């Protein structure tokens, strides 16, 4: 079979088509949100939301089994969306109030999220095995309904993240100035947290809740090695996100390896290579005077005068 035929076969599989579409959407959206998170020094927010979302998955499952829905996990994604959004807003409120207590409160929430998920899934009549696909992703089981959800949420995330990027940049870059400009700082901060929560839930099927944060953060880490501006970082990170997601997924078509972990390992590999090559690849700035408008030399005339008079003015240390 030629390489071309293999590609055609890959693209003609409906399962692979859905998975590829999901990978492209998530790969593009996650780093956009990640750029704001890295700038706000909240790179681990996605991770925290992921933990909380697990409780939402189990809660959705529980409600589904009570309502007798088939399959039982019909409400898992809506449950995750609700839990993630609520969790992200609580985290943001905690952050706003101060740091020392915030650290602890976040830790409580993360572990509460995982423990709550495990507990609730048992109550719902499921097992921990049911949670594994959410924790580590199961892109091969993406259904058409899942895809619609993913597409709708990705459009929201990209629309907000790109459409309001200047405002979100202003708030993330200098919160004090944003307040002094009368910007709705709290609302915009909540918006960042909310689109982060939505991203977590759409990336859940692709890379899994435990690895979501990697897809949000690692492409940004790669992009900022090379980009000079915020918007370039965001664009480049998004492109890298799509490339590693699709490449990771395609690899799993021929090799029996888990897609979520493959994508993340691939991204980290790219980062390692990029960070090593960065000094070589990035075009060096031409050597120039950083302050052409300033007088270069410090005038030393006064110093000469001082030296003459110092002997007279300064009491000698020995006296």
């Amino acid at each position: 079979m030629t390489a071309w035929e293999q590609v055609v076969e890959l693209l003609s599989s409906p399962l692979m088509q859905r998975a590829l579409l999901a990978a492209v959407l998530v790969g593009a959206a996650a780093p956009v949100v990640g750029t704001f998170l890295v700038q706000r020094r909240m790179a681990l927010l996605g991770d925290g939301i992921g933990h909380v979302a697990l409780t939402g998955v189990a809660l959705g499952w529980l409600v589904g089994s009570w309502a007798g829905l088939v399959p039982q996990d019909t409400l898992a994604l809506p449950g995750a969306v609700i839990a993630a959004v609520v969790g992200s807003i609580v985290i943001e409120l905690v952050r706003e109030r101060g740091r020392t207590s915030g650290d602890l409160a976040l830790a409580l929430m993360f572990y509460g999220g995982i423990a709550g998920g495990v507990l609730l899934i048992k109550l719902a009549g499921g097992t921990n095995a049911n949670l594994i696909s959410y924790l580590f992703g199961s892109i091969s089981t993406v259904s058409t309904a899942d895809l619609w959800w993913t597409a709708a949420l990705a459009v929201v995330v990209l629309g907000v993240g790109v459409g309001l990027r200047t405002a979100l940049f202003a708030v993330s870059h200098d919160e004090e100035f944003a307040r002094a400009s009368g910007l709705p700082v709290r609302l915009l901060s909540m918006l960042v947290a909310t689109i982060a929560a939505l991203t977590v839930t759409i990336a859940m099927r692709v890379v899994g809740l435990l690895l979501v944060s990697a897809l949000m953060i690692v492409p940004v880490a790669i992009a900022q090695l090379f980009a000079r501006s915020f918007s370039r970082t965001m664009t480049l990170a998004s492109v890298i996100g799509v490339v590693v997601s699709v490449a990771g997924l395609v690899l799993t078509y021929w090799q029996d390896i888990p897609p979520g972990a493959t994508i993340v390992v691939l991204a980290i590999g790219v980062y390692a290579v990029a960070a090593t090559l960065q000094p070589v690849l990035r075009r060096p700035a031409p050597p120039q005077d950083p302050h052409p408008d300033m007088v270069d030399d410090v005038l030393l005339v006064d110093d000469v005068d001082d030296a003459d008079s110092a002997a007279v003015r300064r009491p000698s240390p020995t006296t």
Partner: protein
Amino acid sequence: MSTPVIEATGLGVTLGGQPILDGIDLVVPAGEVLALLGANGSGKSTLVRSLLGVVTRTAGDVRLFGAQLGPSAPWDRIGYVPQRLPAAAGVPATAYEVVTSGLLHGRTLRPPRGHKRRALDALADVGLADRASQRVQELSGGQQQRVLIARALVRDPDLLVLDEPTSGIDIPTQATFVDTVSRLHDAGTTVVVILHELGPFSSLIDRAVVLRHGRVAHDGPPPRARGEHAGEWHDHTHAHPDPEPPRSGPSLSVEVNP
């Protein structure tokens, strides 16, 4: 008389249980250049931040251009220059991007038409036209200060608030600040500037408010330097002779018993 630009009555701020400001009354008429003076910790920065709504006030009332602080205040008429850029985050940002963020205010969440031209013009005004696409983190301290000025000026404010614009800045850059402020003053802009010493701004200042322990200690014409310090060519930053070393001799020790 026209509406004062800033009108604060009985302003009080408490941070972490500590009263920082207490009973501040301040009215700044249009076109005035007001210097806020005082020692470190006297509440100068907190006063400015509470006037602009960065710090929530615990007592009193603030009006800017006659409007209450809040979403409906005329934020486009106010330009704020903080003391320095926040510590660099991981994501790079260019001088142009930082200045563009100054075009957003109140409920204007997207940059208006022609924002590119305006941002580049503002950078050119502070002499950084050729630095627009450089990372702000890579600029020198003085250049970062000028980016912050450009971010405040890009929206053509009628009130400019500067927090210690000359701290840690060399004399030539200070001079460009003074030029900028004097040009704005001539155009009718109201300026509130926090200073440690009047220094190069002294000729521009109409009025000075001195804070001490969160209260107004002086409000009136700028205090003049005393004695030989007032001389036009007096050098404030000369080396003083070394202090006399402590005399060696019998020492006194004190012991306190409960």
